[in-house]
């Protein structure tokens, strides 16, 4: 069976095409606002191209993500929570929990042995927008997201910026920059504050989350952020390849019953 999963996130659209439990095609592109419908179509087209199949070959298309209702081609929609858990189970059959850190939302879901979700937490509104924040700070600091992600850990005795929210964080970062801190130092402090915010979500669950924890979503690609998060949370994450496609993969998997 060939199924397609579309993850319409705040910043990016991700598509995965799955054939009998194997990924045969992927696509990624910016989400945007008004032009979202055509963006979804073109990302889908590139994924189909990679999979070397026609749209007609896809039996079922499932959408997930904040913009899941914008994908007109999708027959069904699932929330990110469900798709993240499905993908985690697929990528790592004994995963105990999955953390999805994206542009806007950070969530953690712990799972039972049979794959059902035991407990889940989504970030508070004040901790929203971590991914977007990092991207915009990189832009403000005139470095690429890749450069930002390659930074070493922050100096514990160095400058810090507010871990309250992106608003205060940005204000503090600009203050530091203004008072002569180097862009690199500021970037490190910014990553640290973002990790602290994300960490408060990871620390939230009441029931045990186990020790095999997957990290997926766009931020999983940011090595500096991941290192800071691991240090703050005291967790070694399992980071699958193509972590940012997890949502789309999970969506494609929902067509297959949870066994």
């Amino acid at each position, binding site marked *: 069976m060939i199924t397609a999963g579309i993850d319409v996130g705040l910043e990016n659209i991700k598509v995965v095409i799955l054939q009998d439990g194997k990924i045969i095609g992927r696509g990624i592109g910016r989400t945007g606002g008004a032009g979202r419908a055509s963006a979804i179509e073109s990302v889908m087209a590139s994924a189909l191209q990679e999979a070397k199949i026609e749209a007609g070959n896809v039996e079922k298309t499932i959408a997930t993500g904040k913009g899941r209702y914008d994908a007109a081609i999708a027959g069904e929609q699932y929330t990110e929570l469900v798709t993240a858990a499905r993908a985690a189970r697929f990528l790592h059959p004994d995963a105990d929990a999955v953390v999805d850190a994206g542009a806007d939302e950070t969530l953690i879901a712990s799972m039972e042995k049979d794959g059902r979700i035991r407990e889940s937490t989504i970030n*508070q509104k*004040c901790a929203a927008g971590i991914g977007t924040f990092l991207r915009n700070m990189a832009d403000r600091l005139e470095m690429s997201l890749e450069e930002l992600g390659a930074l070493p850990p922050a100096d514990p005795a160095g*400058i*810090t*910026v*507010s*871990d*309250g929210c992106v608003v*205060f964080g940005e*204000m*503090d970062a*600009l*203050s*530091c920059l*203004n*008072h002569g*801190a180097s862009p690199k130092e500021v970037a490190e402090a910014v990553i*640290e*504050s973002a990790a*602290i915010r994300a*960490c*408060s*979500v990871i*620390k*939230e669950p009441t029931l045990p989350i186990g020790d095999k924890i997957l990290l997926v979503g766009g931020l999983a690609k940011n090595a500096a952020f991941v290192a800071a998060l691991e240090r*703050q*949370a005291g967790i070694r994450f399992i980071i699958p390849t193509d972590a940012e496609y997890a949502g789309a993969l999970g969506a494609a998997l929902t067509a297959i019953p949870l066994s």
Partner: protein
Amino acid sequence: MASFRECAAGRHRYAEEWKARTGGKVLGYFDTYFPEELAYAAGVLPVRILAEHEPDILSDKWIYASCYPAKDMINQFLKGRYDYLDGLITSEGYCQWMFHAYEVITNNKPELFSHYMFFPDYTEASSAKIALHSELEVLKGRIEQWTGKGITDEALDNAIEVYNTNRRLLRKIYELRRADRPAILGAEAMQVMLASQIMDKAEMNPLLAQYIEELEDRAPYEDRIRLMLVGSETHDTRLEELVESLGGNVVVDELDNGTSYCWNEVIPQKDRLLAIALRYLGRPHNPIKDCNWLRRPQHIFELFEDFTVDGVLVVKQIYCAPHGTDNYAVWKILRERNVPFHFFERDGSIPVDETGLRLEAFMNMLRPGLTRLAGWHTPLSI
């Protein structure tokens, strides 16, 4: 002075050392409605819980709050900074955030002696003193039970005397700050106030008396713009320091851990508990207790006049409901009486550029012509 500043900065160390030295019990308290005299008479050291600002990943699990002091207090407790405490106390209607913090902490640390004290909101009702008196009896009984020994009248008299002396000395510092060119600036004075809420008062009083003598001989500072600080309690002196770096000086405050803490004394009478109850019912109230909403604004205005203040800074913590609800009354009286003021919100961190802009513009508005030289540079203290 070094000792007061050190004490305020390394706030946990003093109590830890005191405990090791005396073997006594330490009781944490959140608010200034708790009659410390009762604990002190039982040989217990009352220590005020103060917030710091540091990265916090622990408190969000326990509390949904936008109030940084409440969150930070929980954070500090969970990190074990307050492990030296033997008990914790809070009182009715101080503020919901502190109450919430109290609840979370006592639920996390059930081994602590804890008491939630009733304090009438309707302070001027003639039954209020009876109700509070009865509550103080309950509290006295609980402390006696906890420490295992009775609180004698002599001990109470002594505690009242020690506390009254301390209040008198602290007010003396405020008196010195009334001078046209005071020898002490706001940040330093606030450090003394913070220290007084941490230290054993009997130990502090002679040091304080000596310190005041030194102050009287100290050379005055240059002419500075005189500001007054009104609003949510502050647990550090960064705002005062920022004001000073810009050429101003906070000469007086109307803060729960400033003037309101030391403004009135216990007038001794035979019924000691009633004497104490009357002191706390009659103190300058914080917004929640100021039930007729006329006294606090008037009190602020009186302080403004007394201290020949140039302008008032009304600063509240983000999402501080009591001060938020009192803003109207405070702004109204200040505007009606043509008192310049500037209102802003603060949080754990003070963004130096944004706050510096406010302060500088405000001071320029009060006394135009104060300009800074290019290259002026505030230290990074975020």
